[in-house]
């Protein structure tokens, strides 16, 4: 295996900037790794061989000219196929976007490029980010590098699997109800969902506009912080992005746990929680205590209402956002439509998969005349109660720590026919999206089947510094990456 493959973002950047390796060398090494691993992992929708090598050559040229190549110079990064990248097909895991090639970069992608990152590919996902296993992709089945018989989680399953399998140094995903944190937990890597408004959503294909947020996956907490540093900040092209300064995230990583008050919500350790998940999470909490943190019991009493609230709010917003797929301006168009109305129905019926249709239907229903107050308005009021739970808890603690997911990665097919049981796998993550809070998952242990368990760290709105600080300190205490790596998924050749 090439020497670059398991280097961190900071190490790759340093090697390239010092001229010890060219961006082209690094890019070639990763493309080779992708070719070797992809037949088994299938994390990518599109590998950008030629474009990536062109990007790398451009970085090398900048370096030869003595110019600053940027904080992510030569770092190979993959992005979820829900973010537009100029000139690269963007499918959102759906047949309805067949043939769509965006004319512009999402702001997060543009910022990665401007920072010198090399875009190696677009990653597989549940169709329109709707799902928790990536099984809802209309295309390939992405496998978990820790156990190829299991799902990588979702909806950003490809972005999590490709970093876990060393096919990219870091990646971007999106999180509407847990779609960054849950796959990170399943694949044993750190990843962050920033505060709503921290990262621009411009060029992110919308699922639920009041919940969606873009965030990074990395091999280390520091890598996540380095990518966040680049993509965070106000964007005039996204009216919901916050006009707030972006702090120095790297500086937050060294501050340690001493004296911090960490809240443990009892609602996130319910009876029936997978015992191995509970053991791993409580083990990490003991380490936090030993490192000087104070553990404090907190209550988030409306937690049980989060999933029903989420499935009303998210499906309502989705049914509205997905109305734009009509076969007129981009993507799939049904043939032989009798008239315009028929074109809409046929295009959408052919183009969307079952889970997307189910959510459009549910969203249309909860917004339809006579039901709006009973469902949509009710859910938005419960959302207020969920936010107040967190506001009260954060009066007495600096951060909150919970398991990321109630179970480790499950097997293919285990939940596909039972939407409710699939929805429940987001039970610890959706609350943050509803309240707009930042949250991160870091690996905190392995089960006896050698499956990673994720620990979720939650902060106040716009306090990514605290989330990263706690995550970095716990990462050091746990020592997961030094002790455990997925079995090599390289196909025998």
């Amino acid at each position: 295996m090439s020497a670059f493959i398991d280097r961190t973002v900071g190490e790759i950047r340093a090697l390239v900037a010092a001229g010890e390796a060219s961006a082209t060398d690094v890019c070639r090494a990763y493309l080779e790794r992708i070719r070797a691993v992809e037949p088994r992992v299938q994390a990518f929708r599109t590998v950008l061989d030629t474009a990536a090598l062109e990007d790398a050559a451009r970085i090398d040229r900048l370096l030869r000219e003595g110019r600053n190549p940027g904080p992510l110079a030569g770092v190979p990064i993959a992005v979820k196929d829900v973010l537009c990248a100029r000139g690269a097909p963007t499918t959102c895991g759906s047949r309805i976007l067949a043939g769509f090639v965006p004319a512009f970069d999402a702001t997060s992608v543009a910022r990665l490029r401007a920072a010198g990152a090399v875009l190696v590919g677009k990653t597989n996902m549940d169709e329109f980010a709707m799902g928790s296993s990536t099984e809802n992709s209309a295309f390939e089945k992405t496998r978990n590098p820790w156990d190829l018989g299991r799902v990588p989680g979702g909806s950003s399953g490809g972005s999590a699997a490709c970093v876990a399998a060393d096919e990219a140094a870091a990646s971007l995903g999106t999180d509407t109800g847990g779609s960054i944190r849950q796959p990170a937990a399943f694949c044993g890597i750190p990843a962050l969902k920033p505060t709503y408004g921290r990262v621009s959503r411009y060029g992110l294909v919308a699922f639920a506009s009041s919940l969606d947020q873009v965030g990074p996956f990395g091999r280390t907490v520091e890598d996540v912080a380095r990518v966040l540093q680049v993509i965070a900040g106000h964007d005039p092209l996204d009216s919901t992005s916050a006009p707030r300064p972006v702090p120095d995230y790297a500086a937050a990583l060294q501050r340690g746990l001493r004296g911090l008050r960490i809240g443990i919500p009892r609602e996130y350790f319910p009876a029936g929680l997978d015992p191995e998940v509970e053991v791993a999470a409580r083990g990490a909490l003991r380490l936090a205590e030993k490192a000087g943190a104070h553990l404090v019991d907190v209550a988030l009493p409306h937690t049980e209402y989060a999933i029903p609230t989420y499935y009303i709010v998210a499906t309502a917003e989705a049914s509205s956002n997905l109305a734009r797929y009509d076969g007129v301006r981009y993507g799939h168009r049904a043939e032989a439509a009798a008239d315009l109305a028929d074109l809409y129905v046929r295009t959408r019926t052919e183009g969307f998969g079952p889970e997307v249709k189910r959510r459009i239907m549910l969203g249309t229903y909860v917004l339809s005349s006579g039901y709006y107050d009973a469902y949509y308005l009710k859910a938005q009021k419960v959302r207020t109660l969920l936010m107040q739970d967190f506001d009260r808890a954060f009066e007495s603690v600096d951060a909150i720590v919970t398991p990321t997911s109630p179970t480790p990665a499950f097997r293919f097919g285990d939940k596909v026919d039972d939407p409710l049981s699939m929805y429940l796998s987001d039970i610890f993550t959706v609350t943050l999206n509803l309240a707009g809070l930042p949250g991160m998952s870091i690996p905190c242990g392995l089960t006896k089947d050698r499956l990673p368990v994720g620990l979720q760290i939650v902060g106040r709105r716009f306090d990514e510094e605290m989330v990263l600080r706690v995550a970095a300190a716990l990462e050091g205490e746990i020592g997961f990456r030094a002790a455990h790596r997925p079995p090599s998924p390289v196909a025998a050749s």
Partner: protein
Amino acid sequence: MAIGKDEIRHIARLANLEFSETEIERFSRQFNAILEYVAQLDRLDTANIAPTFHVDGGAHALRDDRVAESIPQEEALANAPEAARGLFKVPRVLG
């Protein structure tokens, strides 16, 4: 409240989707299970609670209306299944 197959058909029409009888059957089963599940929200008294449509209240939504560069027409039409004379082309609307 249980919803029947006719109502599923009505929602499908609103959403511009079409389903086979088997799909409608399955949908109505799954729909009722999901609705039964979300009905637990009724246990909460929210009479005096303000709704949160947006976590920051949409505070940054307004900006000055200024003319600026945008995607050229040719690129905007590049992804269209059918375009003609600078316009998106669709089947006839009226018979």
